[in-house]
């Protein structure tokens, strides 16, 4: 008579189950490492981008190995040759897409600016904004400049801002609403056209003396020769107190940017 066994006998653990378990643990560890990278970017800062790449490749390799256990091998053995071809093609396609997704998405995630970056460098500076002129894309003023404008223009103003710059004004328009409005873009276009479509303002604006800026002073002798229609319109709007501020933005020359208040001729150099 055999002795009663206390408790339930453990089911035998096969090699396949061990291997599956080991691979699952490996995936979990690699994922944890990726999350860690995401939070502190230590591989990027300390060991370079190559390690990050190896990390993603390793994750893909382990996933592949784990997926081998998920393949319905018994069904494959019984399947017709057509089904075998389809299953094989589907499997290869699945692995190829998985690899691309792991590398592409993982890379993008890991190279994103992290919370720590943003705490260290500030919200806007953590974002790389391309301010290169002439590449055919929609371009915007440097966000730090936009924030400065938003901070400088008083909340109560109802006068318009004449934006002159080599980047598009939409961010300003959005950020300033409803406190202030940009001057009609027609004015800006007139000025651009008068300058032959060029954004080279050198010689028109003296950034070191914005209070003497010829752009906005009705007595300026240069204006009639350069842009008569624009000058007339600006003078009219200034007389009606419809332009209260002039913002000049030059992406190539940060020291030439300024925010100029017309009514007091007090200017605030930005950089």
């Amino acid at each position, binding site marked *: 008579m055999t002795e009663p066994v206390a408790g339930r006998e453990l089911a035998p653990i096969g090699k396949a*189950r061990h291997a*599956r*378990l080991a691979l*699952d643990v490996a*995936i*979990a560890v690699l*994922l944890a490492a*990726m*999350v860690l990278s*995401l939070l502190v970017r230590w591989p990027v800062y300390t060991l370079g981008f190559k390690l990050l790449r190896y990390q993603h490749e390793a994750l893909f390799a382990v996933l592949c190995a*784990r*997926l081998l*256990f*998920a393949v319905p091998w018994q069904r494959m053995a019984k399947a017709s040759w*057509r*089904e075998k071809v*389809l*299953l094989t093609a*589907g499997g290869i*396609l*699945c692995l*190829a*897409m*998985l690899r*691309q*997704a792991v590398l*592409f*998405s993982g890379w*993008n*995630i890991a190279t*994103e*600016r992290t*919370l720590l970056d*943003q705490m260290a460098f500030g*919200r*806007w500076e*953590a*974002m*790389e*904004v*391309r301010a290169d002129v002439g590449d*055919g*894309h*929609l371009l*915007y003023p440097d*966000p730090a400049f936009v924030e400065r404008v938003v901070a400088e223009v008083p909340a109560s103003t109802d006068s318009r801002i004449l934006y002159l710059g080599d980047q*598009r*004004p*939409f*961010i300003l*328009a*959005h950020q300033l*609403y*409803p406190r202030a*409005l*940009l*001057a*009609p*873009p*027609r004015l800006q276009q007139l000025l651009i056209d008068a300058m032959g479509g060029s954004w080279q303002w050198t010689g028109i604006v003296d950034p070191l003396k914005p209070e003497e800026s010829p752009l906005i002073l009705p007595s300026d002798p240069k204006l009639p020769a350069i842009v008569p229609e624009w000058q007339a319109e600006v003078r009219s709007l200034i007389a009606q107190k419809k332009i209260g501020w002039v913002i000049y933005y030059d992406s190539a020359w940060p020291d030439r940017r300024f925010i100029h208040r017309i009514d007091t001729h007090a200017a605030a150099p930005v950089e």
Partner: protein
Amino acid sequence: MGTILPAMLYLALLFLPGIALARLLCRGEQRLPAEWWLPLSFALGLGVHAVACSLCLLILGAIPWIGIYLFHATVAVAGLWYSSARPGFPTLDGFTPLPADANRNLLRLLALVGIVFFATLYHNAITFPFTGYDGQAIWSFKAAILAHEGTVYTPTFVDPARVHYHRNYPILVPMVLAGLYRAQGAVNEPGARVILTTFFPMLVVAFFAVARRLGAAPLVAALAAVPLFSLPWRNDFGERDGGVLGSGSIDLQFGFFAFLSVACFMIYWREGRRWQWWIGAICGGLCVMTKSEGLLVVAATAFANFAQAILAPGQYTRRAVLLRAVAAPVAAIAVALPWLLVQSRLPNFYDEDYGGQLNAATIAAGIERLPVILQVTGADAARVWKWNYIWVVFAALMPFAAAGWLRRKDFFLDACLLPWMAACIFVYTISPLNLAFHLSTSSARLMSQMAPLVVLRILAFFLERLTPR
């Protein structure tokens, strides 16, 4: 938390009427698993909001925001009470349990990958500012105007001197964001980006649900969803700004409605449940209210429904299915009608007035553009690092799929996607914009709208041939 918590509460306010409507529409289903009710409730909740706002703009000329919030609460309470008090409505369940097989842990790990990914996107959305043209100049700006002035009939909205373009462009997304801004009394950009980002998890969950409905095993459905995970970066603005979904482009948001519309019509023709037809039609209407391309989605699904009704009506009489095929675009337009009437009163913008370009001379001149358009879009689609293999595989499978058309099987998605693509190419040929500029700023975005359906098409190709119906 002053920015995120209000956004989450607002999302809950949008979800509640959606849940009620989802239950009412899905009458006859025994249960509604979370992979279905989550995306359906989200889409329908946004739909309730957008239609209510459009009706107010149409009838009252302005949006009474308190009334809108009360309307949401009323729809939610009335719908949930009605569906709870009567039999025949589905119960709202959790996610369909994972099968107790050897792949259980792997599925859990894949779910964990998804959660980490979503968390990254939300983190990104919260911390990065709107940077794209669409985010800044169109969506959030319009939302701010709607929240501040409560109407579209205002000089700020329609006066081109206010640096505001695309004045009559569909405004479902601005109306949704404006509800948040108004409730808080301030522009809450991070909160807006949380709402925009929520579309993506909902899209992935909807994809999983549809894939399971087509017969894919849970692991296969999860793996098929993997290519979607790089979608947030497959966008001109996302790439350039690093802003991903938070940059403010709404092509993926539009893609969510388009996916639900097309996929629900597709499974309707397989299963014949009425709610699938209704969701297909309603989401078609929401596409129209989200972007101009929505009209293409309605037209493409109408074409595919007609093709299905004529070629493969299934167990129904041809008259019955033809009636439903005719009614589908009518229902979609009926959903969007309040907005379309509001839109008709707004000034046009002529830089994208494609309808005005339709004359024989423009079309004839556009034919010369065709090789360039095909070359540029084809080269972009073949960029594996950007689009994974989805477009390459889709193109490779088409000849084999064509054999299925002849057998009158498995052609609904093709009948929808191919005319949609052809229409987009046609628009490029007649576009008044500079072609290089137009292609560089929009082709990747159009492709990202279709990408979830293309992945579904690839999955359906294999399932159709490996799974007995």
